[in-house]
């Protein structure tokens, strides 16, 4: 390697955080607001029948347009496709923090829906996790029509 200039590391001396607020669009707004009455909406494609959760108005499989009347109500129940026990957590500046109590994340397919949801799992010990087990939504006590209304999924 030819002449290697010494390097200087540069860090921001003051906190510097860029904030974002993404507009969600009509379909997603309906999905979020309906969480208040503890309901999960999906969008069923009128052409190929694929059910998207959260809902949207363009089918990714057959490109058909999905209208608001194609919204369907899904039960909060589903099956656990896959799971992982997290022993670390990634903080906002990109450092891995060891977790004193491991957390569980699941890949869940809701009844008669096709999308996979990636959600935290609660009230379960890692060793009891089994693929295919039945799970359901655990709602926040006071649901306010926000994504945080879904606390996590629990075994039924």
């Amino acid at each position, binding site marked *: *390697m*030819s002449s*290697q*200039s*010494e*390097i200087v590391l540069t860090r921001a001396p003051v906190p510097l955080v860029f904030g*974002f607020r*993404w507009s*969600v*669009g009509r379909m*997603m707004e309906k999905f979020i607001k309906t969480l208040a009455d503890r309901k999960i909406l999906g969008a069923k494609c009128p052409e190929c029948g*694929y059910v*998207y*959760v*959260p809902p949207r108005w363009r089918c*990714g*499989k057959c490109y058909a347009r999905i209208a608001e009347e194609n919204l369907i109500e899904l039960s909060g129940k589903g099956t656990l*496709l*896959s*799971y*992982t*026990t*997290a*022993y*670390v*957590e*990634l903080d906002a*500046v*990109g*450092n*891995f923090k060891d977790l004193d109590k491991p*957390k569980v*994340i*699941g*890949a869940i397919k809701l009844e008669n829906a*096709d*999308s*996979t*949801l*990636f*959600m*935290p799992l609660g009230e379960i010990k*890692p060793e009891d996790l089994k*693929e295919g087990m039945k799970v359901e939504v655990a709602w926040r006590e006071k649901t306010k029509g926000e*994504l*945080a209304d879904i606390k996590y999924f629990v075994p039924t």
Partner: protein
Amino acid sequence: MARRVAIVGYAQSYHQHDMQMTREDMVFEVAKGALRNAGISREDVDTVITASTDFLDGRTISNLYTSMAVGAYLKDESKVEEDGAFAAYYALMRILSGVHDIALVEAHTQGSVVNPHLVSNYTVDPLFERQYGDLNDISAAALQARMYMNKYDVSEEQVATVSVKNLANAACNPHAHRRMPDVSIEVVLSSKLYYDPIRELTMSPISDGACALVLACEEKAKEITDNPVWIEGVGSCQDGYLRDRNLDKLDSLQIAAKDAYEMAGITAPFAQIDVFEVSEKFAHEELMIYEALGLCREGKGKTLIEKGMTEKDGEIPVNPSGGALGADPICATGLVRIMETAKQIRGEANGYQIPNVHRALAHGQFGICAQKNIVFILGGE
């Protein structure tokens, strides 16, 4: 392909953790190295395609300050914002179109600038997955690994065997970042557990590194070198988003490989390709890659690794250079795979040269759970 295009020169950096070199110097070294290896100068280059991303380089318009270092001053330059193999793919298109004859392709990432796993969390759907916070490329890969291992009854030892193979191979490659000559399954399975079953040694390291290639059309290639490496086939594909795609299969890699095989006239990859360099960001992914490339039937990736068929001395050597588990400078990883296959064909892979290689396959990927894949088929004279 109307026109034939060949790789005529290449260079890569010594990938390592937290390289003590500025980004500009690192880019300059590999660009200069590739031109020197090809025996041409900057004046001969028609177009320069670079690959880096704004989030990973910590700079919006990440190629703004490296244009001079890469040698693109007053040249037709563009930047691909993903894995370097896609930059080689774009340079190939520019030459095939007949508008350009010689292209310099460069790709780099310094993983020490921003943690790439944090940036992977920024690629998920901001309206949903990102609001629940804990989805990044490792936790998603863990869910993929669990689903794949359960479906085809793959053991953690079999997955760890991939790491053992690649980390031992990397020990013979001076450019690799993580070189562990006497690694064992026990060592791999006792390494730090991040998201079960993904461990420190079954996922790629965060490396700083860069790579550059020189591509040339047939006439120019024959002038430049008597040992050109021809690009005989290419295929690329992007899968659906994480929520609406098969997680236990790499469908997009299957499609990309089919296109590349078709273009290169390959009907039996197992028999017709002598060496494979694949971008396995996670050990279990290499098994899924075997299946998507058609080297074995679905779920049989474990058999190939168990029988040692993909070892350096096996029937179908995969990653003699150590692969991404050996070094993962994110945007450069795919380009390094192409370079390593070219070295094998030219017989310049000293330390891990596979005997008489005529045809090779290089694979690059980008995105969570290998959502996006690209395959190159390379051949000697």
